[in-house]
């Protein structure tokens, strides 16, 4: 498989160059002087999302740099989650949803025929608003992804054939849990049901589960909204650390949180428009747009 | 058996006789109405219902549909042929009343003089003799049709029968044994009584096991429901005892179903009633101790003969009730309706035309006399 795609790659590469060029121009139209350092990991260009007749996201064009934290903020219903879900095509799950425009991941268009959704979602992981561990043991939760991808075999058959990757799995579990700052709390009860963990622990477990498949991007949709302040601050620290290796995109309704943890911030306002996108400091100290300023100072929303 | 009623151990209302006088039912005063009307001299015009034997059904049902149609005498459909001379029993009838009007008026009912509106309506339910006997005894219906004697059906003594019901015999059946087309095509058109007995007692199960038969085919032994008159008569007349044991592959509720099974399957043998034979359901000759009874009316000994061992009476039982005239076994509706079958007209149209055997004149007169006692 890898060989075939390899040969095809050249065609797509060429198209990307042009679209990428356009993208940057359009972004510059919107925020004349925002230039981040490093490579763009995800690029959306003229992205529109509809739910039935409802136009939820309008013409969003943005470049998200790699290995940094990008926060998406805005009032409720402005389309933050919609935008986030369009980055790993989780919107496909919603039957009424329809997507126009383009999103590129590492320069590859993800809204094209033949795209391997499984592979895409492996590489663009996601953590949800409320923790959603599987009703299985902690160990199984972490190894779930790799097992389904065939990277680790732990099944009965594999064990019978002496082919199981027990050690590898152990290692992976430990590593993922350490990265998610959960190892110390659960090391001695890996076989307990994950539903027995506290909310904050469950959310970190979900992050660990996401990390276990070694993604490149982690999308987080209000990951701390269901948590108490202590758990929240743990998650915030964790996100900060993750940005060293991963590209993190996080939706939050808490402006203080966005200010604390993100490198750049995109502000959506009602109607599904991306109104401003810049370094976080800039947005919070000196936004270009009056509406953004009103929003940030709590005049509405 | 016995007379313990079908509502089992439900509660207070135990015997059929007791409930039927209506003293214990809650909302219905239907039956009490009826009885009081009768004893008061007027004639109830409630629906007359009959239930039971699938053997008697063709007779009763045809009669019932003639009755309900209450057609004028000019109407060919009920007079057999439209040509007056050919009407069976015309001399006897000689009327210009409508059909049901005529028969009912003899028992004191007001003629309606309307087509399709008899002085009272009749209906006939199809099940089998056991059900008919049960139903009439429990007062569920007016007439219980049965093709087996009620004594055998319900395991009664003759005395009990005489105290409980009266027996209206309306015709005779020469119970045939039938085989499916493939069997008769193999040339099997006659069996001995012993062979049939052997088949029905599970001693042979392949046609080729019978003497002189080379047809290698499992015998599909079809029986009638336990409690059906056809089954009871067959056990009684063929196997020697109403409670004789037998072994069959299938039992069906009604004669019609048996006929359908015989026509649908290979290797089949069944006992039934004459009305249900056809070119797919072929009666065979039976050899009883040297006498061969042929299914052909013109042969020397035939299954239509009264000495054919399987010959049986077809009954319409009615219940002896206090409310009836003279406390007898028939009220006027029952008598009027049954009387229709006891005329020459009825015997020809309802009995003989259904391939059954009309009653001999002497028996017929005896029955008529009994029924006519109810006349006002």
């Amino acid at each position, binding site marked *: *498989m*890898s060989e*075939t795609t390899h040969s*095809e*790659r050249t065609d*797509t590469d060429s198209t990307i160059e042009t679209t990428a060029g356009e993208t940057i121009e359009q972004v510059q139209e919107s925020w004349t002087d925002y230039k981040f350092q490093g490579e763009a990991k995800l690029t959306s260009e003229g992205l529109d999302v509809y739910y039935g007749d409802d136009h939820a996201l309008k013409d969003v064009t943005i470049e998200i740099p790699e290995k940094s934290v990008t926060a998406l903020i805005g009032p409720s219903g402005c389309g933050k989650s919609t935008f986030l879900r369009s980055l790993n095509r989780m919107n496909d799950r919603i039957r009424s949803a329809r997507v126009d425009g383009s999103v590129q991941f*590492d*320069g*590859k268009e993800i809204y094209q025929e*033949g*795209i*391997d959704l499984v*592979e895409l979602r492996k590489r663009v992981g996601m953590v949800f608003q409320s923790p959603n561990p599987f009703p299985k043991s902690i160990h199984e939760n972490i190894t779930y992804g790799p097992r389904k991808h*065939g990277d680790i*075999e732990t*099944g009965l*058959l594999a064990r*019978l*054939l002496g*082919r199981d990757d027990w050690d590898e799995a152990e290692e992976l579990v430990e590593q993922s849990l350490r990265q998610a700052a959960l190892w110390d709390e659960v090391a001695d009860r890996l076989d307990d049901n994950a539903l027995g963990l506290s909310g904050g622990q469950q959310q970190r477990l979900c992050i660990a589960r996401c990390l276990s498949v070694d993604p490149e991007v982690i999308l987080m949709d209000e990951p701390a909204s269901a948590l108490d302040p202590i758990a929240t601050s743990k998650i915030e620290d964790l996100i900060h650390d993750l940005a060293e290796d991963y590209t993190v995109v996080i939706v939050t309704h808490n402006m203080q949180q966005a200010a604390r943890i993100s490198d750049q911030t995109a502000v959506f306002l009602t109607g599904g428009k991306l109104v401003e996108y810049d370094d976080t400091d800039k947005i919070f100290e000196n936004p270009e747009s009056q509406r953004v300023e009103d929003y940030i100072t709590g005049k509405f929303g | 058996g016995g007379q313990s009623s079908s*509502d*089992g151990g439900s*509660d207070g*209302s135990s015997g*059929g006789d007791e*409930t039927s006088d209506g003293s214990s*039912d*809650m*909302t*219905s*005063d*239907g*039956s009490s*109405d009826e009885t009081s009307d009768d004893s008061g001299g007027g004639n109830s015009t*409630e*629906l007359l*219902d009959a239930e039971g034997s699938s053997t008697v059904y*063709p007779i009763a*049902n045809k009669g019932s*549909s*003639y009755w*309900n*149609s209450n057609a004028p005498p000019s*109407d060919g*459909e*009920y007079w057999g042929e439209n040509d007056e001379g050919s009407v069976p029993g015309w001399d006897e009838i000689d009327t210009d009343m409508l059909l049901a009007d005529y028969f009912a008026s003899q028992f004191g009912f007001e003629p309606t003089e309307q087509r*399709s509106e008899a002085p009272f*309506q009749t*209906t*006939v*339910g*199809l099940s089998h003799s056991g059900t008919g006997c049960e139903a009439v005894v429990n*007062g*569920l219906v007016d007439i219980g049709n049965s093709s087996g004697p009620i004594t055998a059906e319900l395991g009664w003594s003759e005395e009990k029968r005489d105290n409980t019901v009266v027996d209206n015999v309306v015709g005779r059946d020469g119970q045939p044994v039938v085989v499916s087309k493939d069997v008769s095509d193999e040339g099997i058109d006659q069996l001995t009584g012993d062979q049939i007995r052997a088949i029905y007692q599970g001693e042979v199960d392949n046609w080729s096991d019978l003497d002189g038969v080379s047809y290698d085919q499992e015998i599909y032994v079809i029986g009638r429901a336990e409690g059906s008159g056809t089954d009871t008569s067959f056990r009684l007349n063929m196997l020697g005892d109403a409670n004789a044991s037998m072994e069959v592959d299938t039992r069906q509720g*009604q*004669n*019609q*179903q048996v006929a*359908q099974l015989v026509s649908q399957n290979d290797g089949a043998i069944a006992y039934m009633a004459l009305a*249900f034979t056809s070119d797919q359901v072929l009666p065979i000759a039976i050899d009883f101790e040297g006498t061969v009874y042929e299914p052909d009316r013109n042969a020397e000994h035939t299954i239509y003969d009264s000495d054919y061992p399987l010959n049986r009476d077809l009954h319409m039982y009615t219940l002896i009730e206090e409310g009836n005239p003279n406390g007898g076994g028939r009220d006027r509706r029952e008598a009027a309706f049954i009387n229709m079958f006891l005329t020459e007209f009825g015997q020809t149209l309802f009995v003989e035309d259904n391939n059954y055997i009309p009653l001999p004149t002497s028996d017929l007169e005896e029955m008529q006399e009994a029924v006519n006692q109810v006349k006002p």
Partner: protein
Amino acid sequence: MASATESDLISGRTDSTEAVAGIAVGLAALLFALSLATFFDVVSVTGTLVGVPVVPLVGGLLILLGGAIITFGIGSYLGYVETTPSPTAGLVAAVAAAVPWFVAGVSVGSIMLGSGSAGGVVLGLVTGAVAFAATAFPREDLGSTLPIGALSILAGLVLLSGIIGPEWVWDLGWEQQASLTAGFVVPALTLATSLYVGWAAAKAYGGFGARGRHVGAYALVYVNALSIVAVLVILLAFTVFRGIPGLLTGAEIGLGVGPEVGLFGLSVQLPVSLPFVMNGVALLNDYQGVLPAIVGTFWLVIGAVLFAVPLGIGAAIFLTEYAERGRFTQAVEVATNGLWSTPSIVFGLFGFAFLIPRFGNGKSLLSGMLTLGFMLLPLVLITSREAMLSVPDEYRDASAALGVTKWQTIRSVVLPAALPGVVTGVILGVGRIAGETAPILLTMAGGTFVPGSQTVDVIGGFKFTATPPFVANPELLQATSALPYQLFALITAGVGLGDSVANPNDFRWATALILLVVVLSFYAIGIGARYYFRRKLQYE
């Protein structure tokens, strides 16, 4: 931006490899269809198809199919075909492959050594185990193709070589004689094999691995859904097809051809005459019909609804609005669910023992109504309760916050909001009881061929009496017919309906059709109502 990982994102299988697997899937589908056609006697086992005798033709196709998928598997293993196989086909596939091989082994063993002998089972265990191993141990592309391909080839050879020819019969040698014949075994074998190979081919089409299994499973699930719909369509189409002639016997359209109908004193002559539904059975009729049974069914349903709906809704109100959720409501819930699953014949027995002695000691319309009412009650209760539970608590809170009492809230807010659910539930429930035979068999069944003049007239039957209970209705206390019972009676009465019905078979099928139409129209109305209400309430 490592090139290897990146290229994974876009599937890059060439059209030609997909085509090979695709052809195998198509061939399997063809064989599947062929086997069904054989079951339905559209194609005869002894006959020919495009000039070739059916059995060898099917055998050849099976061999071809088995060959194709084995070739595909080996091609993939040797790297000629682009796939992403897992290291093993997995436990499920292994068990799935072991089962038919076990059956094959047992059959071959039993035929050779005589059925019932241990030899067959031993052989089956051996073949099953081998198939299991051959699926489980090698890489997935081999494991999921070789054993199943071989099975297909084996089946094909058996048919092609004439070991199982069109006249093949295997007497099972049981006391109650039964045999397997080519007429059954050939299509059954083809059906099973084509499903298996189709599954394997679909996996191959998906390139094995997670995606392959996904495709394989979806193929089977789609076939299943399609078959269910097909069964439904065939059942309906068949009944309609067979029933139409009887239904339309003597039908006429035109002014003044129909019977007169009186409604509120007005008498109208219908412009349609459909004797089958407008007549009873009578000597003088030109055409016979089942009107009394239709009317009987109508009254049965009315009676059951009048009994069960108020009771069910009332109980549902008490349970959802008044009763504290606790042991009592739980007990009622268990009881209603128990009633819901009680077999209809048991309701019949109960009606027979309980109601009949209480209503004139005879089978009667009233007993039938109540028996069906007992059956309908749990259905109404459960659906009403669900509908009321799904009325948002906000409505109740809003009403309470306005200082409105509980019963007024129930009446003015809860019930109207629950109405769509209740109505839908009742209609569907009515559809179910309208088609029930068993309970009315024991409690109501009347005559088989009922004259039109005996059509029940419940309204006209009421009269007042001088003795308690002062009101009587003999019509309610008489037995009458209903469509499902009439059909049952027609089945048991078989042929020989007597002179009155010209074509008994048409008459029976037409009765079945009418019953189906009556019952399914309740369902159609119920399902339609649900869609309507859902659509209507959507703008919330």
